[in-house]
């Protein structure tokens, strides 16, 4: 059965309204300050460290993102932790909030489809996250320029840029997850709690659990199989995918993300950087995985939303 009219009618209107809500909300401001302050602390620490240690590194700028100095973790570790928090903060009450404020049936009685409302909310959330991340990214680059006193090379900029895009995709995964739960659970508090719980599980517990699970289900005598199996399981977590992608992008000497096979090392100079294209190729499955996870989670939320009762 064909529905009459475009499912995207009203999409732009929803995006603009939600975006303006996000950008003016106190919640978003708190989250932004949290991210900016912690991230800048990490970068500052990294800069002082980098200045002391590596004098002649062709990828000095990338070190800003990855270097950690005790007791602070690196900038990317911070992002890996805080980006989900921001995304969940934006998405956990997207749909159930409309239910609870009894605005949903009124809005859906206007000539738009549910598609436009849900997708508009997702796009607005993603745009908000992108704006914050781009601002943060520019801040880091600017700080690096001032404090290191050398401009970044073209390839460094390209890598940093792709890193930015991947971070946005990573944010998209958590946003889509939070929105899915905002459809499934009528109470925003429950939705927030469940999403945060799942995030903690996937980020902290699952990677530690994966080797154990692999050992339990795979023959113990095949060491290579065990390692691969554990890695594959760990990759079910978006955090693992993000971490691996970042590793490949920001550390050009990364030659492989799986177990190292001798064949891959043949003719390779240990520690020599890969060209950008090959680094991207190494992380390609992970990047696709992140985007696919976003799409799958969004579609799940979409299906649930289409079947949902509008009445409060």
């Amino acid at each position: 059965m064909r529905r009459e009219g475009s499912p995207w009618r009203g999409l732009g209107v929803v995006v603009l309204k939600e975006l303006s809500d996000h950008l003016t909300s106190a919640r978003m401001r708190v989250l932004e300050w949290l991210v900016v302050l912690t991230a800048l602390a990490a970068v500052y620490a990294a800069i002082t460290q980098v200045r002391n240690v590596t004098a002649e590194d062709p990828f000095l700028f990338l070190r800003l993102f990855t270097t950690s100095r005790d007791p602070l973790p690196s900038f990317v570790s911070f992002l890996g932790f805080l980006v989900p928090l921001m995304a969940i903060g934006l998405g956990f009450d997207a749909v159930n909030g409309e239910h609870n404020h009894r605005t949903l049936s009124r809005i859906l009685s206007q000539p738009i489809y549910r598609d436009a409302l849900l997708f508009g909310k997702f796009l607005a959330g993603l745009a908000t996250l992108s704006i914050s991340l781009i601002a943060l990214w520019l801040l880091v680059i600017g700080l690096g320029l001032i404090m290191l006193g050398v401009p970044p090379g073209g390839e460094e900029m390209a890598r940093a840029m792709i890193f930015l895009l991947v971070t946005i995709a990573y944010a998209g995964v958590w946003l889509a997850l939070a929105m899915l739960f905002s459809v499934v659970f009528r109470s925003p508090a429950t939705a927030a709690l469940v999403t945060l719980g799942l995030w903690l599980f996937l980020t902290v517990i699952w990677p530690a659990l994966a080797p154990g699970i692999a050992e339990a289900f795979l023959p113990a005598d095949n060491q290579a199989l065990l390692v691969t199996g554990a890695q594959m399981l760990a990759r079910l977590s978006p955090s693992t995918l993000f971490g691996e992608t970042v590793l490949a992008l920001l550390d050009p000497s990364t030659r492989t993300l799986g177990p190292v096979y001798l064949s891959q090392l043949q003719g390779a100079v240990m520690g020599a950087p890969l060209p950008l294209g090959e680094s991207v190729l190494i992380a390609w499955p992970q990047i696709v995985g992140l985007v696919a996870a976003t799409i799958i989670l969004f579609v799940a939320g979409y299906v649930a939303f289409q079947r949902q009762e509008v009445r409060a």
Partner: protein
Amino acid sequence: MNKYVIEASGLTKRYGTSTVVDHISFDVASGEIFGVLGPNGAGKTTTILMLLGLCDISEGKVRVLDHDPVREPLAVKRRVGYLPDSVGFYDHLSAADNLHYTARLIGIALGEREKRIEAALARVRLEDVADKRVATFSRGMRQRLGLAEIIMKDVQVAILDEPTNGLDPQASVEFLELIRSLKSAGVTILLSSHLLDRVQNVCDRVALFNAGKIALMGTVAELGSQVLGGGFAVEVEAEQGPHLALRLGAIPGVRGVEEPAEGHFRLLCDRDVRPEAAAEVVAAGARLKRLAFDQPSLETIYTRYFQSVKPGEARHAA
């Protein structure tokens, strides 16, 4: 142009095994106020949601303004205004900004928005608080803002779910007055309520719902004569004249005469027979002391109907 703006036939909604709306059929004519009345849980909201295409139909057919709400929801929603039960607005936005958002969703041209929103807010007397955040609004103000949204939308049909729910009697009367003015502007109105007596005066026709079925449908007078044996009651008080009860009973249209007290008559009749009754009293040589006219109360009709019909036997009366 079709005479009916809403046509439902055999409309049914099931949740699992429970049938919430059970093969109901009704038509709403252009320009009338149609009341969907019945106790809580009777299936009124579910029926309304099916009319708007906001909820799947298990069985049956609906046409709203000659469109199918399932296949052409946008066409229906463009021409129909909906005021949900206890309507909500975005609390952090002002009344005008809330309407601006809806106006953009509807697709009202930029140049017209301001004008239409202002006019709509003035119609429901919210123009003074147009720039106040909705968070500060009372229940009645929110309800009126919802009506302003419908006025701004410039619709042909307005569907109002429990519009007087939660309003104090004064606000309730004012709101019904607004609904009447909407009707005189040419809008067809379908409203639901579980408070039968409160809305009976604004409705041209009503459908009395019970457990997912329409038990009775028609004008209040029709239902009265059907269920109570007389649609209207005329009270006559007169100083005793000869055979007054007989003479009053002989007036065409009078179905019965009760004499609850000496010199006090209660005529059950199909129409307003006050002129004839007055003439009879005078002709009988008695002195007329009081003449009063009562609409039957829907509440009474409803209760009486379900006393006379055992549950499960409720039939379509009209």
